[in-house]
């Protein structure tokens, strides 16, 4: 279901090797992938297979040691300087000395948005993640789920083209996670952002994505790319449908192949 053909992220033969004390670690090896505008791509794979590394490479937080990677037609680092990315980590990573509004405001301050513009954007994204009214609270006054929504709001506030999320819901319980999955899907439908999403949960990957990228470690590479056959409209109940179960099964099989105990 690769909608249209407007490639935003193009990776060709991307290699990444970390030099460590115990010799080089091949975190990524010959990764080819094209992500088009409006795609929701999930990365799934066992621990240490390079999911995080690949996401960081896209965001120019790491530099590939081989291959080529362009974002919006330019090198990733230029895209970073053009502030093309909103990045969300597993932990909310909110600054405890700033209120929720202050946290959302931070990247806007750094990027030099005017005060009025900032206020307007903060209000809008708080609304979007259903946190209107909580702007004045400090992070620790909110539950984990609310904090994570705030951190998503922060990544959305400056309207980056590309949203990269590294296990954003990993630390939350299943019910809260369900709610946030629904909300994220809704948000993606509204904004049609391009989303790269790392997860360990098969149902989450299947439920959210237009495309699921299965990765395998030593060295980190893509072993399977599964196009979702699910419709764009996805109530939570879709997870009990045979289609969903079949997709899950396919992902699990893909995973099993490249996996060794730990």
């Amino acid at each position, binding site marked *: 279901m690769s909608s249209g053909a407007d490639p935003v992220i193009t990776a060709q033969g991307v290699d990444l090797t970390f030099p460590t004390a115990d010799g080089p670690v091949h975190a990524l090896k010959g990764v080819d992938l094209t992500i088009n505008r409006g795609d929701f791509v999930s990365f799934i794979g066992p621990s240490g297979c390079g999911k995080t590394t690949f996401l960081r490479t896209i965001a120019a*937080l790491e530099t590939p040691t081989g291959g080529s990677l362009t974002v919006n037609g330019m090198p990733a680092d230029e895209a970073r300087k053009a502030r093309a990315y909103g990045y969300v980590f597993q*932990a909310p990573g909110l600054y405890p000395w700033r209120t929720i509004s202050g946290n959302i405001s931070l990247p806007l301050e750094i990027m030099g948005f005017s005060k009025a513009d900032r206020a307007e954007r903060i209000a809008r994204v708080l609304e979007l993640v259903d946190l209107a009214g909580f702007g004045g609270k400090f992070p620790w006054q909110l539950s984990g789920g609310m904090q994570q929504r705030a951190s998503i709001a922060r990544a959305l506030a400056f309207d980056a083209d590309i949203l990269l999320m590294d296990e954003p819901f990993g630390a939350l319980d299943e019910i809260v996670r369900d709610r946030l999955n629904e909300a994220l899907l809704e948000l993606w439908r509204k904004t049609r952002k391009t989303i790269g999403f790392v997860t360990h949960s098969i149902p989450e990957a299947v439920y959210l994505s237009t495309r699921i990228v299965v990765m395998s470690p030593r060295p980190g590479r893509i072993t399977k790319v599964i196009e979702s056959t699910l419709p764009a409209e996805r109530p939570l109940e879709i997870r009990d449908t045979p289609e969903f179960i079949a997709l899950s099964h396919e992902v699990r099989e893909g995973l099993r192949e490249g996996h060794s105990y730990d």
Partner: protein
Amino acid sequence: MTRALPVLTVLAAIILVWYLAAIGMNAQWAQDQAARAGTTLTTGQLIADTLSQDRPVLPAPHQVAAGLWDGIFGQAITSKRSLVYHAGVTLSATMAGFAIGSLAGILLAVGIVHDRTMDQSVMPWAVASQTVPILAIAPMVIVVLASIGVTGLLPKAVISAWLSFFPVLVGMVAGLRQPDAMQLDLMRSWNASRSQSFWRLRLPSSMPYLFASLKVAVAAALVGTIVGELPAGATSGLGARLLSGSYYGQTVQIWSALFMAAALAAGLVVLIGLIERITLKRMGLAR
């Protein structure tokens, strides 16, 4: 109340032990005196004598309390005999040294966190600097500084700065390195400049560390000042007071000055704790 009770109990125990020690340590003298005078003392007389000597080996708590009372309230604050006056002299040099030391510590820490050359060059020598027995050479330092025209309050301040910069340096380096990789990466993903990362991330996250080390540093600064005053020209200040007390064998005066100094240190630490609470609260860091 529940907090005061244990402290009071321990305090009471200490005072009791103190009294017993005073009796024990001063008894020899009382007996020698009696022997010289050719009299003998009853136990009651002996105890009464040990607790009221002019030059006791260990003054009794009430003698120290009286000495403190007299030193603080017995004279005009401007009098040279007033402990408040001497505490004021010590305090001003302490504050100057503390300010210099903390500032130096903070600036060095900023340099160390941002520049690898500084990190590798300075840090080992900062540790080594603290092994120099600065207290032992304090008088010399004061003379040498005077020879290049640094006189008055500043030489003492330099010694207290030397002692107080180190805890601040160590604490600040830890504090400025507090932000985890994720938080730094966020900054990078927003393409924040170094100074933006510093002012908006590193500095705020270092605050709890800064205050913790400031508390250590201010106590160290006070010790530095007192030592600066102690052997290096007794003019004024609690150190001079300690010295002259020691010189004339006036133990009560020594202990009064000592307690005054401890109270000053405790007061300074409490004050910084207060500033810490207010600052962290306003930053939303205190819960």
